[in-house]
Every structure is written in structure tokens, then in C-alpha cells.
């Protein structure tokens, strides 16, 4: 852009907007961005900033209908109970399995999908992706049925056929966890495959060609080239898996609503919901949310540091 043009443009606009403040406003390049950002500001203030302050305030209060009293740290002290610990434990175990399963397997699947020998790539990619279109509730309904308790229910009937005893899936801690983890893995697998596929596209082919010349086999190429080169994607998937794990709620709700035997399905978000809406303990729920918020922020800062969305430009 040459300077003369800018001046020409300025005089042009000045001519057009002469003496009309409304016209001046709609042509103003200074005001325009704020006009465009107004909806964002409004939503941010009403549905984010204020709720954050309110959350901290609520966590120091005992909230009953019509009256609210300050109780200092009582909610935080009350938080230290066995139900909460179980919720934290379940959330962590769940997150652990999600990471252990949903990183290496999609990475391997993506690598195989990317193979030049495989035809119908798009078909297989779609097949893996389709479960993620289904809501957790709908998926859970069918998982719940397949993993029914009787010998005739699908999964149990398979177990009986290969000589195992039928399981009461929704009653035990280990089997309950298995249900939640497998429901999530079924839904998320295809999404992670697509992330890794996108990552694979950015690996220069010359690296593999060089490895071929050195006589490397497929396994060596996978561990020496693919895995290290996929590190940024892997970190990204790791972070979203941790986030997904921390906020887990639906996978448990669909199997037990909010009343799992011995808390086997209780998660941190489930505990917040239960306290606030089933037991009317809003303050305690808020205190737990504050802890969760701080956790999310710590992980988020880690994410920013390693990904640097700020570094982008």
C-alpha cells in the first residue's frame, strides 16, 4: 500500500462523511473492531467473568433458599471427606486409562491408515470417526444394554462361550471403570486418529526415504521417525485427554445417574452436581469447582507454555 493511496482514501472518506456523525461512525476503522467484539464482551462479562467471582464467593458461603451466610473455609474443610476422595480417585484412574489407551492406539492406527498400501482410506477413516457423532447418552444406552448382567446379554454371552463366568458389570469398581473407559474410548478413538493423521501429513517424506536407504524396517521407522516427529500432536492429545478426564461426568451419569453403588462411578464433576442439586449444598459444590478450576488453569498454563498459541504470529 502506497502512502498516496491512503491519503486519497482518507480524503475520500472525509468527503463522504462530512458533517454526519452517524456516517462517520460506520466508516470509522477505530470503532469497528469494538463493534464486532461487543457480543463477545457481553458474553464474557455475564457468563464468564461475573460467574468466576461468584464461584469464589459461593465457595465461602452456606447457601440456603432466602438466606446466605458466610462460613469462611468451612466448605473447603468439609470437602475433605471420603466421598470426595473417591471422586478424585475415580477421576484420576479414568484419566490415566484414557491417556494410556487413547494415545498409542490412535497413533498406531493413524500410521497404518496413512500407509501407501491401504486402499479405501476415507472409508476406514469415516468408520472410525462415526462413533464420535453419537452423544454419550445414546452410546451409553447401548453399552449399558450390551453389558447387561444376565448370561444372555451380549458381552456376557460371549464370555460364557469362551469359558468365563458372566460379570455384573455395573456393580463392581473395576468393571464399572471398564464400562466408562470403553464408552469414552469408543467415542474418542476416531477423533484422535484424525489428529494424528493431520500430524503425519507434516512429516517430510524425505526422512522416510533416507531411512529406507539406510535399510530401516517399518518398526524402526515408526519408533525412530514417526513417534518423535508426532511429539507436538501427542502433547496436544495428552492435554485434551487430561481435560476430558477431569471434566468427566456423562459417562458415569448414563450408567448410574448420580447413585452408583459404593461411589464406583462418582467423579469430581459428578460430586459437584450431586452436592449442589441433590443435596442442596451449593457452597460445597462451589468449593470443589474452585479446586477443579485451579487444576484446569495449571494444566492450561502448561499447555500454553508448550504450544504457545501466542507464538503463532
Amino acid at each position: 500500500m502506497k502512502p498516496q493511496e491512503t491519503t486519497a482514501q482518507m480524503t475520500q472518506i472525509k468527503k463522504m462523511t462530512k458533517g454526519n456523525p452517524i456516517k462517520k461512525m460506520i466508516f470509522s476503522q477505530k470503532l469497528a473492531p469494538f463493534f464486532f467484539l461487543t457480543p463477545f464482551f457481553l458474553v464474557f462479562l455475564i457468563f464468564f467473568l461475573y460467574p468466576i467471582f461468584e464461584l469464589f464467593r459461593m465457595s465461602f458461603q452456606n447457601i440456603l433458599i432466602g438466606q446466605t451466610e458466610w462460613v469462611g473455609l468451612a466448605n473447603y474443610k468439609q470437602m475433605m471427606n471420603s466421598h470426595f476422595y473417591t471422586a478424585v480417585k475415580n477421576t484420576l484412574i479414568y484419566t490415566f486409562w484414557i491417556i494410556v489407551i487413547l494415545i498409542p492406539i490412535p497413533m498406531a492406527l493413524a500410521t497404518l491408515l496413512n500407509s501407501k498400501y491401504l486402499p479405501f482410506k476415507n472409508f476406514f477413516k469415516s468408520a472410525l470417526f462415526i462413533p464420535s457423532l453419537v452423544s454419550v447418552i445414546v452410546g451409553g444406552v447401548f453399552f449399558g444394554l450390551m453389558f447387561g448382567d444376565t448370561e444372555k446379554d451380549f458381552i456376557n454371552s460371549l464370555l460364557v462361550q469362551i469359558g468365563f463366568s458372566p460379570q455384573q458389570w455395573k456393580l463392581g469398581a473395576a468393571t464399572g471403570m471398564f464400562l466408562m473407559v470403553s464408552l469414552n474410548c469408543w467415542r474418542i478413538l476416531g477423533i484422535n486418529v484424525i489428529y494424528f493423521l493431520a500430524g503425519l501429513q507434516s512429516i517430510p517424506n524425505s526422512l522416510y526415504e533416507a531411512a529406507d536407504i539406510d535399510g530401516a524396517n517399518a518398526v524402526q521407522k515408526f519408533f525412530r521417525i514417526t513417534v518423535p516427529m508426532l511429539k507436538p500432536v501427542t502433547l496436544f492429545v495428552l492435554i485434551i485427554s487430561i481435560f476430558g478426564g477431569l471434566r468427566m461426568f456423562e459417562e458415569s451419569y448414563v450408567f448410574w445417574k448420580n447413585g452408583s453403588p459404593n461411589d464406583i462411578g462418582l467423579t469430581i464433576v459428578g460430586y459437584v452436581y450431586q452436592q449442589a442439586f441433590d443435596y442442596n449444598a451449593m457452597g460445597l459444590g462451589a468449593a470443589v469447582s474452585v479446586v477443579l478450576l485451579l487444576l484446569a488453569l495449571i494444566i492450561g498454563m502448561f499447555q500454553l507454555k508448550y504450544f504457545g498459541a501466542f507464538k503463532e504470529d
Partner: protein
Amino acid sequence: MGQNTTSKIKKTLLILFFVFTSFIVLFPFYVMFISGFKPASELFSNGLNVSMALDTLTIENYIYLFTEGKEYFRWYFNSIIITIITTIGSVILSSFAGYALAIYKFKGRNLIFGLVIFLLLVPVDILMLPLYKVMIFLGLVDTYSGVILPFIVTPFVIFFFRQYAIGLPKEIIESARIDGCTEFGCYARIMAPMMLPAFGAMSIIQAMNSWNNFLWPLIVLRSNESMTLPIGLASLISPYGNNYGMLLTGSTLTVIPILIVFLFFQRYFVSGITVGGVKG
């Protein structure tokens, strides 16, 4: 034994492997589909197995759903309305913000962009209790607006549009301005058409999220008539299995529209989710 044979073996093995994997992954859909055609009594007494005795298959569950399922179609209607408004509203309003952050230079731009990134890190679930209080205060509990408003501008969508618009040629705007185009006109008539792929990708992602959204609607929607599909279906789940017929057919019909959308707009799905964080 040439190069050719080896690659044929590789090809066959890969195809077999992915046919097997696809089969496992898609199997629940078969179960979903077939079980809706089984008599509820059989499901209740024999559990869910995948045997398919053709002579017992029946459409009674679907007939029941369409004749008795008034509440189900009410939920369906609610879900459609909420999904449409959330999708259109959030994509347009978020595109405003993303566009402004990409095109204009103004004081505080980096700060606001940093804020958007920060918001990406805080899941709405964490704020559900104070948000619920806000909704009580605004009188929006149990309304469409209550479900929609917190999502009407979405940080993720802002981020996407900002990344997209930053790659657009700004010179076009300059010349449009000389021709007397207003700032909004530049957006609506020149830049928005150039961002159509972004609108496509984000519409699909937002529609999918809204259609499947669970926790927030569960909190805000209190009455049976105002429920969305996932909330309504969840309310049918009971340990006694007395709602099987409606639950199974109802769930199946929930999946179909989104499946159709997916088949038509596949590539938008892929571009929509990959931009999330994987920088090329």
C-alpha cells in the same frame, strides 16, 4: 517373490485389519438398529443379544414411539430449535470477534486474543453453579435462552475464525473502503463470503456439540416439556427397563440426522476438528 507379492500381502493384511477394526467400532450401531425392532418383552426377558430371529422382528416399538411418544417429539423439537439457534448465532457472533482480532490493529488486541485463549482453558462445566445463579437472576431457568446464551459466543470458534481471517488478503478491504464500503459492509459483502469454508466447518462442529450437549441443559432445563433429546432420553433410563421400547427407538432416531449431515459434509468435520490445536 517380487516386490509385487510383498506389497500385495501388505495390502491384504491392512485391509483385513481395518475391516476388523471398523467392524468392532461400528458394531454398537448394528445393535442399536436391530434392538429397536425387537419386541420389548423379549429384550426384557432375554437381555440384549445380537441374535436376529427374523420372524420375531417387529415395528411395534416404532409404532409406540410415534403414537405415544408425544414427549419424545417435543424433546426432538426443542433439540432442533436449540441446535439451530446456537449454531447460527454462535458462528456469526464468534466470526465477528475472530474477524476483528485478525483484520484490525487496535490497542488491546493482543490482550483480548490472550483472553480468548484463556477462555479456551476453562471448561463451562466448572462454572455451572454460578451460571445457574445468573440464570435464576435473569429468569432464564427452563428456557431456550438459558441453554443457548452461555454458548452464543464460543472461544474456540473465535480462535478458528481469527486463524482463518488472518490469512485473507487485506488489500481487498482497502480498495472496498475507497469505493465507499462501510466497515460492516466489508465484513458482510467481501470477507464473509471468503470465509465460507470456515463457516461450514464451524457450523458442523457447533451443531454437533449443541445436539449432544448434556451437563448444562441438564441443569438449566427443569421441566419435562423443555428438555432436549439427551436429557429426555437420560430421564427414560431406569433400572427396571420399563422404557426399553421408547429408549431404543428414540436413541436410534437421534443418531440418524447427525449421521446424514456427516455423510454430506465429511471434509468439514475433519477440517473443523483438526484446526483445534494441531498447528501444521
